[in-house]
């Protein structure tokens, strides 16, 4: 006897739905895979989006509830309206945002995903048909932490939220974690009536939201990329938890896949800064200032005309961009400078530190925006052997990533972090707004180096002035 669909109590639609989930899951993986090459990246993003769209449409038309009914027309209209509303807002925000604000935006979208996960879990928890209480509560907690944490990360990157760091935050956070765990265990271990159960789930939601805020609050701005990546990973896991509730393979695979991708990216970033994840989470950059006692030497400035002559008659120039370049919107002016120097036969390369900017690869995006070919962007490990042969290194708005203290001062908080060896090149020009310290709040001895000359001012203005000066040579 052959088994028929009827024997299994399913319809053709159910099978098509599952097939569409399989296709969607495959498209997610292919999409991210294609994104690993600049040429195919755009296609990869499109494939992943197609997978998502497919899963959304088939769910809308084919998903059957517990009593076997598909989604009614009226419900469908409500859903489509909500999707159109969210879609328009999302598109407008994503299109209008400035490229420098990209990290905040990713953090914001991550927050909305976390919020959606938390809401789904919250409602499913009081749904009597839902038998998987453990994953539901986990989804609720993780989603809520991802939401509030991402909102704080968004606020910090946008300059709306400052750092709060006090010894008590660490203890407070440990206390909160214990409290959340205890409440979860209590909710799972004992039977409660509906009203109590609902109330407890709201309390749990509240605790998780507070934890998310307090977890990100003490973490310094320099560590935000790591935090966003971590929260991104959490959102994926929260979505996978919701996938368990519905036994939905596309959600489980997509969520876990993104969760592990985010986790490994987080670790890679920590490694680039030579810090452990625990260290990032528990302690803000020490600000210990133990190194400040050393004799600093003197700062020497350079005039625009000297700088332009120096650059024009160099053979090899390396530009080290930092967040200061992004803030000043100096990427276009920088590209002008590069073109001008290349016309004069100077070889120009960009040295990209893994954590330059506010996110890994952020600097690449900004420079790509200004039409700098990505073949000119050289990663730290590849350019460092070349640094002693470099005539001039221009440090634009970067600080900690060129701080030699990371190499030779064990008392420095960034000791051990790999840096771009700007100090090895023959001349160094540092463009900086003022003598302020970098994001990590520590002194940079590169500025006091004998080969270093400072060019103070807004990066964009300085570079433009430099361009004009070189043109007149």
């Amino acid at each position: 006897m052959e088994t028929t669909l009827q024997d299994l109590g399913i319809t053709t639609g159910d099978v098509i739905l599952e097939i569409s989930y399989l296709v969607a899951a495959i498209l997610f993986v292919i999409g991210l895979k294609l994104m690993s090459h600049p040429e195919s990246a755009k296609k990869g993003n499109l494939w992943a989006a197609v997978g998502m769209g497919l899963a959304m449409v088939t769910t809308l038309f084919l998903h059957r509830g517990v009593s076997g009914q598909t989604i009614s027309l009226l419900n469908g209209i409500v859903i489509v309206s909500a999707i159109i509303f969210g879609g328009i807002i999302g598109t407008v925000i994503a299109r209008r945002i400035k490229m420098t604000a990209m990290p905040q935006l990713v953090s914001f979208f991550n927050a909305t995903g976390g919020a959606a996960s938390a809401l789904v879990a919250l409602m499913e928890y009081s749904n009597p048909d839902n038998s998987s209480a453990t994953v539901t509560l986990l989804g609720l907690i993780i989603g809520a932490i991802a939401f509030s944490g991402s909102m704080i990360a968004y606020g910090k990157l946008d300059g709306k939220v400052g750092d709060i760091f006090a010894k008590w935050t660490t203890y407070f956070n440990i206390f909160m974690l214990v409290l959340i765990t205890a409440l979860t265990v209590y909710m799972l271990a004992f039977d409660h009536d509906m009203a109590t159960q609902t109330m407890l789930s709201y309390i749990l939601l509240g605790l998780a939201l507070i934890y998310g805020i307090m977890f990100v609050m003490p973490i310094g701005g320099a560590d935000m990329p790591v935090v966003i990546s971590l929260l991104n990973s959490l959102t994926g896991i929260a979505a996978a938890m919701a996938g368990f509730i519905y036994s939905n393979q596309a959600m489980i695979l997509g969520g876990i896949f993104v969760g592990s991708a985010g986790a490994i990216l987080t670790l890679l970033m920590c490694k680039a800064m030579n810090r452990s994840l625990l260290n990032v989470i528990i302690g803000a950059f020490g600000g210990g200032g133990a190194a400040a006692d050393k004799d600093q030497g003197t700062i020497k400035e350079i005039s625009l005309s000297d700088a332009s002559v120096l650059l024009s008659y160099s053979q090899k120039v390396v530009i080290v961009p930092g967040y200061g370049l992004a803030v000043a919107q100096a990427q276009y002016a920088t590209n002008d400078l590069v073109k001008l120097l290349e016309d004069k036969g100077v070889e120009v390369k960009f040295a990209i530190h893994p954590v330059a900017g506010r996110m890994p690869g952020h600097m690449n995006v900004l420079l790509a925006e200004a039409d700098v070919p990505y073949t000119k962007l050289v990663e730290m490990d590849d350019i460092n052997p070349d640094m002693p042969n470099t005539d001039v290194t221009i440090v634009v708005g970067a600080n900690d990533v060129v701080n030699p203290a990371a190499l030779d001062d064990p008392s420095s908080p960034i000791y051990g972090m790999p840096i771009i060896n700007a100090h090895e090149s023959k001349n160094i020009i540092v463009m900086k707004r003022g003598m302020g310290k970098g994001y990590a709040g520590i002194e940079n001895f590169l500025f006091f180096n004998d080969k270093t000359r400072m060019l103070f001012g807004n990066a964009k203005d300085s570079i433009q002035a430099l361009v004009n000066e070189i043109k007149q040579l």
Partner: protein
Amino acid sequence: MEDFLVYFYQNKEVIFIIALSIFLGVEVISNVPSVLHTPLMSGANAISGVIIIGGIILLGHTNLNTFSLNLVLGIFAVIFGTLNVVGGFVVTDRMLDMFKKKKKK
């Protein structure tokens, strides 16, 4: 102990999916040049909006005849999920546009 064995056996497919997905994620990320880390993070972020499916299922089977808190929360869940998905993919596309522009020239 037996509980654990039973649990494993009953959920073995899902456990397989999880284990393999973790490897898949690690494998895909490790091969990406750092040039593409930000778009990739953004793209991965958009995929984590897969929670939208949960939102659709939930709102799709919510009773619309009576006004309930669940209805409001469900609508918000779908809106938030869409924001994550649509915003995420659009912004990733915009970032990647910048890489592509140079290819044509």
